[in-house]
């Protein structure tokens, strides 16, 4: 199970970083999302992988899963979800304002027009 989880994290991270390095906002956002999935599984694994163990105290049970990473990962999921929503909206606004979805800021041909559409 360790090998499976570890390679899944590695694969998601690799795919996430590859997509993040693209030039268009859509792949970048998908890449960031993949990366946050990888991070969430990684946090979960930080509490050691355990099967069929309860995280909450029970008099009849002798061994437990670590409950803290589960709380941490819940926080991380909520935050990355909110952050993804923000970047989607800002990227959409940038796309609507500039007419293209490139991430880099190197093109300055018709920059004079850029000041015209300030609202």
């Amino acid at each position, binding site marked *: 199970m360790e090998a499976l989880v570890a390679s899944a994290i590695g694969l998601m991270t690799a795919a996430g970083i590859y997509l*993040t390095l693209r030039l268009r906002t859509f792949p970048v956002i998908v890449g*960031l999302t993949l990366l946050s999935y*990888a991070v969430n599984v*990684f*946090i979960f694994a930080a509490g050691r992988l355990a099967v069929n163990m309860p995280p909450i105290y029970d008099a009849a049970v002798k061994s437990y899963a670590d409950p803290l990473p589960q709380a941490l990962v819940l926080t991380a999921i909520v935050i990355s979800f909110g952050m993804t929503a923000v*970047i989607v909206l*800002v990227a959409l606004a*940038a796309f609507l304002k500039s007419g293209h979805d490139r991430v880099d800021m190197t093109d300055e041909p018709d920059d004079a027009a850029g000041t015209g559409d300030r609202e």
Partner: protein
Amino acid sequence: MNHWIIAPVILPALLAPLIILLMRNDLLLQRVFSIAGTVALTLISFALLWAATVNPPEVYFPGDWPAPFGIVLVLDRLSALMVALTAVLGLAVVLYAIGTGWDARGRHFHALFQFQLMGICGAFLTGDAFNLFVFFEVLLIASYGLMVHGGGRERTRAGVQYIAFNLLGSSLLLIALASIYAITGTLNMADLAVKVAALPEGDAALMRVAAVMLILVFAIKGALVPLQFWLPGTYANAPGPVAALFSVMTKIGAYAIIRIGTLVFPPDTPATGTLIADLLLGSALITLILGAVGVLGATTLARMVAYAGIASMGTLFLAIAAFTPQATAAALYYMIHSTLATAAMFLVADLVLSRRQDDSLRHSLPPIAQSGLIASLFFATAIAMAGMPPLSGFLGKLLVLDALRDQAAIVWSVILVTSLITIIGFARGGSVLFWKSHASDEVVETAPEPDPLAFTMVIALIGALGAMTVFAGPLMGWLEVAAAELHDPAAYIAANRLPGSE
């Protein structure tokens, strides 16, 4: 238990939703409450500063959960100082934004501003590494909103880059925190300090990897080379008052490195040794050089100020990298100075930009309204940033040089040469902006109303730098105690009341 410790987090956290829910259509009411909230925050932060001065480090247990399991807030001299600095800067910035009408150019400026203050104060106060991540995200999500405040094509596009870069940073921070948790089983900073000091030999390599990842994240926040490239684009495109407030955000990276570097990974801990100090020293030197060259080569005023900010972070990290009490005290003095000076300079850049839309340094442009006053304000802030007498930049650099005597050969020459380059850069920028404009025969553009409140705030920030120079003696005395407290964290750890340590 001193309940006021959590007030700098609670107050903006309650005020911001109130502003959104009840006063979203009434700008006047928003302004009144935003100013009142920030003034209250300033007063509370001064009270906390006093409490931290007379008492040893004090811990607040939200929900009364005991330390390694519950989240804690810790008030010591360093965190109290940073909260007070944030509050004072926040007050100046919010008044400036109101004076220039920046807050009316988009919606929800004041609510976002209060959330931003909440995140920054929380990041300074927290004593839990995961909670630090949460407050980072609070301040970042507010900064995303402030960054694109007022809209505009370039600003929104710069905002996308800024958000993407920080999301990557957050992912890295989570990986680092999860690794540290996997090794030690705790994320409470005081508990980490105890556990890392007694780390088994076999875990040291993994801990070094985690420590470097953690430092990388703080280096992103602190704009250290090679992770500085987000800063010029972001700060140059952000609204002026927001860029001024962001000057305290880079200091959060510096604060976190001071905190983690003295508490959890001090240079004498066997697991990491001087690894962090060595990494910081090299990259701080390059940061300083890059910032100074950037000041000389910048094509717009806002970018020049951004690079000056990077250069000051380089000087700051040089002092931090020494990890001695004397150097840390100098770093703290320089950190206050750098925050206020960078903020003042961004506000001056905004005054110029509001009078002519173009702040290019490539060619001369027609003169601006109130040119004389703005030019002298630019002159004063440039003196402060470059580190010339009589303002606090000079004393700050002198203290840093004095603390780094044993590395004089490289560090002194880099600091002194880059100071010269910065002075030349500012002189060039200032003369193009303010002197050469008189050579142009174009007519003066229609002058906007002079805004006394905005000018007062810039002058107040410069006045604060002057006060730092006049009262440098008592201030340094206070900071030396703070630095000694940081380098001997026994009191900090004891305040957490960890089980088994009593």
